[in-house]
């Protein structure tokens, strides 16, 4: 690793290192039982020992999160387009999309489990918890194209439909990706809530099972892994954004 990258990485690590240090100090001072609060070393040890079990559950959570994120991205973007394009849809659908977020979605979980097979219930919950930022960012983005861009193309004979596909949609992409990055984080929470109530598989299920058996170090290890999955999805969206929107990278201005 180059020195420059190291220098950029170090500040990022300050807070977690401080937190782990404080955690260790608390263990030394208060000496709690391990099932109440295990030491960082105990968590690492338990995580390593149970690595195969953790990986088995992590795959499940990761798979559900990725599928739900893809559904949220596709359905959310399509809904955003319809809402932005049609006045009727804006009046009929958009207010209810917003109202739907007032319902604590976690409270829906037991109902979904009642109505759907476990896999579908978890998927629906993860989609419901992640689709909102995609829709809102998409609708905002589709209205964000600069009027001059519309005027310039309409003034060269472009039809209304052409400007939607060639001006408004590309102009909406940066904001849409912002929504997708938020969705990438929320989708993991949705999957975990679903697994907590509806599944024997997945890291959400593992936290429930391990905490119930006072295997607290394993619970901690599962939580750490969940955070890593969230970070990974966030990072994947950020990479996709860089690849899809090369113009948002700012090269230096050529000298003329």
């Amino acid at each position, binding site marked *: 690793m180059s020195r420059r990258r190291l220098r950029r990485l170090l500040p990022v690590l300050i807070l977690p290192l401080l937190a782990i240090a404080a955690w260790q100090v608390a263990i030394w001072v208060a000496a709690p039982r391990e099932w109440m609060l295990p030491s960082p070393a105990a968590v690492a040890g338990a995580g390593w020992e149970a690595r195969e079990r953790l990986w088995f559950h992590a795959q499940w959570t990761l798979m559900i999160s990725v599928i739900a994120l893809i559904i949220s991205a596709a359905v959310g973007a399509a809904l955003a387009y319809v809402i932005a394009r049609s006045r009727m849809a804006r009046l009929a659908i958009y207010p209810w999309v917003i109202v739907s977020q007032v319902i604590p979605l976690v409270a829906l979980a037991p109902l979904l489990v009642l109505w759907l097979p476990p896999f579908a219930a978890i998927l629906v919950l993860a989609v419901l918890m992640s689709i909102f930022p995609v829709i809102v960012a998409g609708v905002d983005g589709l209205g964000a194209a600069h009027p001059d861009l519309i005027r310039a193309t309409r003034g060269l*004979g472009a039809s209304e439909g052409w400007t939607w596909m060639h001006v408004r949609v590309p102009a909406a992409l940066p904001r849409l990706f912002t929504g997708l990055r938020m969705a990438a984080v929320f989708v993991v929470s949705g999957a975990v809530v679903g697994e907590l109530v509806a599944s024997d598989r997945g890291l959400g299920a593992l936290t429930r099972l391990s905490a119930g058996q006072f295997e607290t170090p394993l619970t901690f290890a599962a939580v750490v892994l969940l955070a890593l999955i969230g970070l990974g999805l966030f990072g994947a969206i950020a990479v996709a954004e860089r690849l899809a929107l090369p113009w948002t990278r700012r090269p230096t201005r050529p000298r003329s």
Partner: protein
Amino acid sequence: MPAKGVQVPHGTDIRIEGVRLALGDDPPMPVLGGVDLHVPAGTVAAIVGPSGCGKSTLLDVVAGLAAPDAGSISGADSVALMPQRDALMPWLTLRANIALGAELASAPRDDVGRRADEAIARLGLTGFADHYPHALSGGMRQRAALARTLLAARPAWLLDEPFGALDALTRTGMHDVLRDLMREVRPTVLLVTHDIAEAVALADRVLVAGPRPMAIVADIDAGDGADPAHAADAVMSALRTAGALA
């Protein structure tokens, strides 16, 4: 020397008669108060007037982007509008931006790239074709916007303060670029500006617009035979008479 591959049809007059338009609802604000003008094919007319007098609205009406309340316009489907800001798509390279003009002119697909390359060379943008607009200077972006307008292959151009966002030096350079291009392609041009020197330098005639609701109050010759200083003075005094100078 006519530019190869750049074929712009000739012979469209821009003719506007009695155009009125009010915008807003409560109450409607008259913006265009009966505009009459005629730009003969292949000539350049500049409209000079105070800011906010409705010049851009008039261009929108001529381009068919806004419908007038009264009056008639001929040639609406043969104009290409170029707005004040370059209005290049930030997500397209310079070449793709310029090619949009040809695409919108329904050029054959395999011909679009060739036409774009010719326009790039014609406007001195070779070497910058693969850059995104934000990496280019204002003058270069404006050249690209001109290239796109050229490729739209419309016989009449509506230029809405095309160089208003440029610094004075770049603007003077762009005047030469545009003058050469117009001499070569011979479009019918309606140029809106608030820069009297620019109007006199580029146009055959300067039409002076009064304050809102807009009407043309003077028609001043600024062609090759006219004395530029004299024409500028005439424009100035017409603006003063119209009460357009604050």
